[in-house]
């Protein structure tokens, strides 16, 4: 690039100082060849600035938007994104104390309503009860199940030493096949008892392993309860 070309380029790039511009304009005024070269370059610059902008087609926008916008998620993807989204837990001291109080009350409440521990114990001495359990308390208790088969009966209850011989206190419940059952809680010991059918017929437990006279000519069933 000679000095004249350099001046033209600097003129086109607006790099010339005011006095240099004056010098340059005097040069092109005096030199037709230089003036022609400059005008040709000026025309290129002017025409380039007039070139039309390209307006993108509708296809351009629609395709681009389709590629950028997320496709609709299925319910499983939405659920998965909600569950797996990382979250930040923000807390303060008051909130932490409140949460701790709730936790303490919940644990204490849980212990309060939790049932006592139950241990199964078999009672092999009496066929009158098929399931026997005891609770671990200061005075041990044994759960005894009484069973009587009476398909024709409308009600069955049991009266004995354990309920003051009052049949109204311990009714049996009917189950399928005319089987009547009751589960009662007894201390270890020896008890006499009888079933009362329809509130009027007293019979001894036919499954009892032992009977004894009641002193009035009838027999009571005997139940031995042991741990």
């Amino acid at each position: 690039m000679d000095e004249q070309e350099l001046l033209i380029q600097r003129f086109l790039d607006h790099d010339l100082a005011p006095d240099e511009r004056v010098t340059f304009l005097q040069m092109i005024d005096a030199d037709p060849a230089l003036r022609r070269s400059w005008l040709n370059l000026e025309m290129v610059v002017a025409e380039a600035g007039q070139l039309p902008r390209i307006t993108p087609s509708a296809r351009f926008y629609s395709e681009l938007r389709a590629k950028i916008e997320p496709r609709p998620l299925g319910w499983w993807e939405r659920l998965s994104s909600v569950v797996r989204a990382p979250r930040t837990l923000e807390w303060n001291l008051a909130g932490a104390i409140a949460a701790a109080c709730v936790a303490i009350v919940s644990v204490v409440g849980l212990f309060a309503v939790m049932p006592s521990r139950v241990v199964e114990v078999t009672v092999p001495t009496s066929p009158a009860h098929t399931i026997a359990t005891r609770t671990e308390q200061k005075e041990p208790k044994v759960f005894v199940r009484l069973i009587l088969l009476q398909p024709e009966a409308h009600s069955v209850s049991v009266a004995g030493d354990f309920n003051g011989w009052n049949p109204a206190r311990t009714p049996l419940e009917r189950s399928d096949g005319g089987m009547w059952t009751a589960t009662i809680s007894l201390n270890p010991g020896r008890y006499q008892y009888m079933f009362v059918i329809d509130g009027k017929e007293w019979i001894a437990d036919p499954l009892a392993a032992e009977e004894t006279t009641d002193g009035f000519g009838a027999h009571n069933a005997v139940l031995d309860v042991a741990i």
Partner: protein
Amino acid sequence: MPQDQQVGPDDAHLVARSLKQDHEAFGQLIERHASTIVSLAYRMVGNRAEAEDLAQEAFLTAFKALSTFRSDSKFSTWLYRIGVNKCKDWLRAKRPGKGPADLDVDEALDTHVAEMRTPERLLSQQQVAQELEQAIQRLPPLYREAFVLKHVEGCSYEEMQAVLGVSSDTLKMRVYKGRLQLSRELAALDPTQ
């Protein structure tokens, strides 16, 4: 840096919203800069359909890499750089037998072009524009990108430096060579000269 439609929130605000998964905000950025990027790509590759495809790729790349955009620079400059790089990749792939290095060196002026074209006719304004479009396509890619950014898109040399990563002096030399080749080609079409 020229922009298509500067209406509504500025680019930085739209970029911030886009980063919060606001796709509508990025849609506004597309509408604002689409014409500029498509025009730039068209002047670089000379084919409108290819230009739109390349512009789409540029916007998609920008969308996916938006989290890496540094807010201390202009979004339009960053987008220009992505668009120019897409065009360079396309030109490298479309020039069989010539490797990537061909685009990274200054090419000698094609002094034969002026002699090859000798239509003896005066040109109308529209014809001049058409001839200029075609002559721009015949420029070596490095001159072409510099000339297009400078004189078609109206960028300053500082903006061009940020887009192309080349010093202002080098860019001035490339613009000079581009202008010189184009002036010779257009002068050859004018029998009065």
